[in-house]
C-alpha cells in the first residue's frame, strides 16, 4: 500500500471509531496493533508491551497519580467553602465581585492542583448556587467557573505540562514557570472582562445585600492561609531546590492530606474515595498515553510521520502560517478529544517540525497548553462542561452551559494570540528564574 493511501485509511478509521464512541485509548491501541501487524509483521507486536511497560515505569510520569490524588484530596478538604466565604464577605458588594472572586479562587486552586476538575467541581457546587441566588446572570456565573477551572493546566503544577515535557523532552520545571505569567494574564483578562461587563450592565451581577463588619471580614480570612501555604509549599520545594517537579507531587499530595486533616475532613471514607477515584483517572490517562504512543510508533514505522513532516516542510509558506495552522488543528482537535490524547498524538509529529522551523519548543508547549484551556470548555467534548453538568442544578441545561462559554473562549483565544505575538510572556520568567 502507498504511504499516502495508508495514511488516509488509518486516520479515517481512527476518526470513525472515535465518532461512534469507542474509548480513545482502545481505539488507538487497537488500530496501532492491527497496523503494526500488517506493516511490520508479528515481530512488531513487541511494541505494544514495550510501550505499556516503558510508560508504566517512566519516572517522569510518577507525578500523574500523585497530582491527581492531591486534587482529589483537596476536593474533599472543604477548602473551597472557606475560600468562597472570604470572597463573599470581602467582594460581595463589588460589581461582579462574586464572579471575579470565583475566578481568583480557581486560579488559587490551579496553583495547588495539576488538573482542572477540582476547581470546577468545587466552584460548581459552592459558587454557582450562591451566584444564582443573588441573581447573577446564568451565563456569567457558569462561564466564569468553567473557564476559571481550566486555569488548572496553565498555572503550575500541571499534568498536561508533565506529559508535554516528557514527550517533547522539554524541562518540566521550565514549562511550569513558563505557565505562570500567561496564567496570571489569562486570569486578569477574565477579571477585566467580568468587571466591564458588569459596569455596562449592572443587572448581570447585582451586588450582595449582606453587610459585614470589618471584624466579621477578618474572621474568615484564615481560610486563605492554608491554600496559600500549600501553593508555596509545592512551588517552594521545586524552586527552593528541595526536590524535582516530579517529586514535588508527593509533597503536594501529602500537603493536601494535611489540609484535609486541619479542616477535619480526613475521614476514612474521604480518603478511600479519593484513592479510588485517583486509581481510575490515573489508569485512564496512562492508557491514553500508551495508546497514543503505540499509534505514533506505528506512524513512524510506516513512514507516515515522515510523509506529514516532509509535506508540511515542503510547503513554501511562512513558518508563522504553519504555527498558526497548528493552533487551528489543536483547537479543532480540542473540540473532540481530551488534552492528554491530543498531546500524545500530536507532539511526536509537531514538535520536530516546530523545532525545524526554528521556534522554541518551550514556548510552543505553553501555546499548546493555552490552546487546551479552550479544549476544556469547547463543545461538544469539553471536560469542564461535563463536570459542571454533573454538579449544577437540573434547571441549567447543557445548552445554557454551551452558551455561557462563548465569550470566555474568545478571551482565551485572545490570550493565545498575546503569547504568540509576545513570546516573552512565556519565556521571560523561565529565563529569569532558571537560566540566570
Amino acid at each position, binding site marked *: 500500500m502507498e504511504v499516502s493511501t495508508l495514511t488516509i485509511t488509518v486516520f479515517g478509521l481512527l476518526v470513525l471509531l472515535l465518532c461512534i464512541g469507542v474509548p480513545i485509548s482502545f481505539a488507538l491501541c487497537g488500530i496501532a496493533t492491527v497496523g503494526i501487524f500488517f506493516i*511490520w509483521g508479528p515481530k512488531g507486536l513487541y511494541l505494544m508491551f*514495550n510501550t505499556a511497560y516503558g510508560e508504566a515505569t517512566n519516572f517522569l510520569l510518577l507525578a500523574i497519580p500523585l497530582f491527581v490524588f492531591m486534587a482529589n484530596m483537596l476536593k474533599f478538604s472543604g477548602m473551597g467553602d472557606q475560600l468562597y466565604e472570604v470572597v463573599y464577605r470581602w467582594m460581595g458588594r463589588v460589581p461582579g465581585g462574586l464572579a471575579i472572586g470565583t475566578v481568583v479562587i480557581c486560579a488559587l486552586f490551579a496553583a495547588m492542583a495539576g488538573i482542572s476538575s477540582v476547581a470546577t467541581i468545587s466552584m460548581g457546587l459552592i459558587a454557582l448556587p450562591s451566584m444564582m441566588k443573588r441573581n447573577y446572570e446564568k451565563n456569567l456565573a457558569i462561564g466564569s467557573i468553567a473557564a476559571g477551572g481550566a486555569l488548572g493546566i496553565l498555572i503550575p503544577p500541571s499534568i498536561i505540562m508533565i506529559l508535554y515535557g516528557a514527550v517533547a523532552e522539554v524541562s518540566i520545571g521550565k514549562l511550569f514557570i513558563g505557565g505562570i505569567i500567561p496564567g496570571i494574564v489569562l486570569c486578569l483578562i477574565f477579571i477585566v472582562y467580568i468587571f466591564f461587563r458588569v459596569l455596562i450592565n449592572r443587572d448581570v451581577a447585582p451586588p450582595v445585600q449582606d453587610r459585614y463588619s470589618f471584624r466579621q471580614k477578618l474572621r474568615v480570612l484564615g481560610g486563605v492561609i492554608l491554600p496559600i501555604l500549600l501553593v508555596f509549599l509545592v512551588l517552594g520545594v521545586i524552586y527552593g531546590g528541595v*526536590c524535582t517537579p516530579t517529586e514535588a507531587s508527593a509533597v503536594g499530595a501529602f500537603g493536601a492530606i494535611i489540609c484535609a486533616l486541619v479542616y477535619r475532613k480526613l475521614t476514612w471514607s474521604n480518603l478511600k474515595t479519593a484513592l479510588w477515584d485517583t486509581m481510575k483517572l490515573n489508569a485512564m490517562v496512562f492508557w491514553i498515553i500508551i495508546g497514543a504512543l503505540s499509534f505514533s510508533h506505528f506512524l513512524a514505522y510506516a513512514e507516515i510521520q515522515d510523509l506529514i513532516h516532509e509535506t508540511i516542510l515542503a510547503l513554501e509558506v511562512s513558518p508563522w502560517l504553519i504555527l498558526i495552522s497548528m493552533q487551528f488543528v489543536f483547537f479543532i482537535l480540542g473540540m473532540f478529544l481530551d488534552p492528554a490524547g491530543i498531546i500524545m498524538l500530536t507532539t*511526536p509529529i509537531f514538535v520536530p517540525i516546530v523545532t525545524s522551523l526554528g521556534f522554541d519548543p518551550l514556548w510552543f508547549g505553553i501555546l499548546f497548553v493555552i490552546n487546551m484551556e479552550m479544549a476544556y470548555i469547547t463543545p461538544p467534548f469539553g471536560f469542564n462542561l461535563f463536570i459542571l453538568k454533573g454538579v449544577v442544578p437540573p434547571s441549567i441545561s447543557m445548552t445554557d452551559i454551551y452558551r455561557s462559554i462563548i465569550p470566555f473562549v474568545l478571551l482565551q483565544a485572545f490570550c493565545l494570540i498575546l503569547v504568540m505575538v509576545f513570546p516573552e510572556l512565556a519565556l521571560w520568567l523561565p529565563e529569569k528564574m532558571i537560566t540566570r
Partner: protein
Amino acid sequence: PRYGLAKTYKLKLQCVYPEKAYMGQTTKFFAKRVEELTNGKVKIKVFWPGQLVRTKEAFDALSKGMIDAYSGSMLYFAGYVPEVNCEWLPFGWANPGEAREMYEKRGWLDLMRAATDRHGVRYIAPLCVTSMGLITKFPVHCVADLKGRKIRAVGMEAKIMDALGAAPVAIAGAEQYMALKRGTVEGTDYPFYTIGKYKFYEVCKYIVRPALHTPGIIEILMNKQAYGSLPGDYQAAVDRAGWEAFLRTVKLSPTWDEKAFKTCKEKNVTIIDLNEKAVANFRKATLPLWNKLEKRNPITGKLVTRLKAYLKEKGVQID
C-alpha cells in the same frame, strides 16, 4: 546470492541521540557508509529518539527483532549484559587511541561480540562519546572532596560515585539542569560536551580532568538474525562501516572535548586538573568495582584482566 543481482535489504535502526548531536551524526555516517559499501543494496533507515522504541526497552526490541539495529549505550541493560560495565570502568584507558588498542589488538571487540551474541544481538562496533566525568558546583581535588556530595548518576555511574564516597542521586535526565541550578544535586557525571550543549556552564562551576571515562563508549548493535540474513560480503560491509564510524569518533572525540574546554574558558567554568597522586587515589577507590566485575563471568573476567594488563604495561598501578 550473486553480487550484482542481490536483492536490497532495508534495515530499521533506532538511534537514541538526536539527529544534530555528535552521535546522531555518527550514526548517519554509519548508515551512509553501509549504503555506499553495498552499492545501495543495504539501506539503513535511522529513527530518531522515541520514534520506534524508547531507550529502556530498546535491547529487548533489538534481541527480538522488533528493530534491526540500535545505536546508543548498552548501560541501560547492564542488569543482564554486565559486560558493558567493563567499557565504563573509571580511569581505564586514557584516550580514544588506547580504547582502540583494546578493541582492535587485545580482543575486546570479539569479547563484546561474544557477550551480546547470547542475547541474539550482533555487536557491530563501539563508538567514542567524548570524555565523560564530573561536572560540579564545588571544587574536587581529591577523593575526600566528594564525600557525601549529592551527584546525579545512574547505573554504573552510580556505582562509581558510591565507591568514591559520594551520594548518587537518580533523577531523570530531563530534570537534571534544574536540579543542578536549584542545588537539589551538587554535580553530575556526564559527557563534557554537554557543558555547552545543555548549558551546564550556567549551573556548574567546575569540571574535573582527567574525566572518569576518556572516552565513554556506546555501541552500534544489530539483531543477529537480521545480520545473519545478509550475504557474507554485506555482513563484512556492515562491520567495516561500523569500524569506520568508530575510527571517525576516535579522531573527532578529542576535538569535541577541546570544544567543551573552550566553552569552559569562555564561560568561566574552572577546569580542575587532578595531579597524578590524586588520580591514583581515585583509581584505587574504584578498584573494588574492577575486581568485582572481573569475577562476574568469564567474559567480564577476560575484559578486565586484559585492560589491567594493558594499563600495567603503560606503567599504571592497578592493584
